């Protein structure tokens, strides 16, 4: 079309032809600059320019750590003439024994920390009841726990409330005590305290123990 126009204008108006010729040369100059720029880019890319991408995957991981994993009362006996002794842990303080002569030096609460990179739920269970732990008179025995925040707001959403900041009988089936245990530093630790009431007529004597299973799962 442009060529036709050139033919027509060539035969009719020489002044228009000049304008068209100038326009074509300007167009040529612009195209040349554009072309050279493109060519330069292409050369740079094919000789020393490389593209790539960084593949970074951050996995979410539930990692709980029991920083104090043993409550050890050591040896002791019920002090006469009492019918039971009460042994209670209290956070990071030494445990206290009442009506008995156990030492609470190594009896401190279990400390559970969420050291992963995601909030998690926390379920607890023991394997024994007071009866299977000690035996003896039922009214003179107890095996209880008490779960609390060691750091403020560690548990954002509580689950099973029966042992929240209060004494409750240890469960042998898993109880989800916290639905959302935070992972952020300075708000990710909880205490599990224990209270043992040892009857004077315990049928189980000598070295006794129980294992507490602590499960961290996806936050509810």
């Amino acid at each position, binding site marked *: 079309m442009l060529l036709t126009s050139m033919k027509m204008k060539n035969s009719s108006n020489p002044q228009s032809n000049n304008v068209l010729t100038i326009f074509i040369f300007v167009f040529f100059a612009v195209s040349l600059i554009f072309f050279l720029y493109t060519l330069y880019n292409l050369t740079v890319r094919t000789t020393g320019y490389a593209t790539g991408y960084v593949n970074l995957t951050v996995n979410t991981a539930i990692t709980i750590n029991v920083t104090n994993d043993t409550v050890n009362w050591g040896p002791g006996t019920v002090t006469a003439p009492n019918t039971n002794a009460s042994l209670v842990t209290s956070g990071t303080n030494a445990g206290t024994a009442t009506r008995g002569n156990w030492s609470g030096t190594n009896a401190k609460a279990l400390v559970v920390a969420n050291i992963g990179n995601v909030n998690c739920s926390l379920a607890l269970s023991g394997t024994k009841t007071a009866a299977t732990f000690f035996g003896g008179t039922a009214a003179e025995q107890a095996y209880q726990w008490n779960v609390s925040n060691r750091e403020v707001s560690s548990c954002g959403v509580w689950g099973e409330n029966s042992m929240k900041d209060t004494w409750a009988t240890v469960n042998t089936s898993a109880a989800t005590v916290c639905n959302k245990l935070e992972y952020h530093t300075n708000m990710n630790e909880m205490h599990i305290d224990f209270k043992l009431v040892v009857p004077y007529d315990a049928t189980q004597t000598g070295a006794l*123990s129980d294992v507490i*299973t602590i499960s961290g799962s996806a936050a509810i």
Partner: protein
Amino acid sequence: MASKKVVIVVFIIAMLMFAFSVIMMFSNSNSNAANTSTSDNSVQPDVESGKISIIVNKPSHAPN
């Protein structure tokens, strides 16, 4: 007549250069498209344990 042919040749060359530049520009923009990938990482539970232990000696008395 000769100058007219020159103008036509110049015009055709300009058109070709322009077309080449435009094509290369689009092909580069496509190769620069972001590469992204996603993966599903399910969270695995973690199980730890604690222990409570006590040594109970037989009392040397009977209750009152």
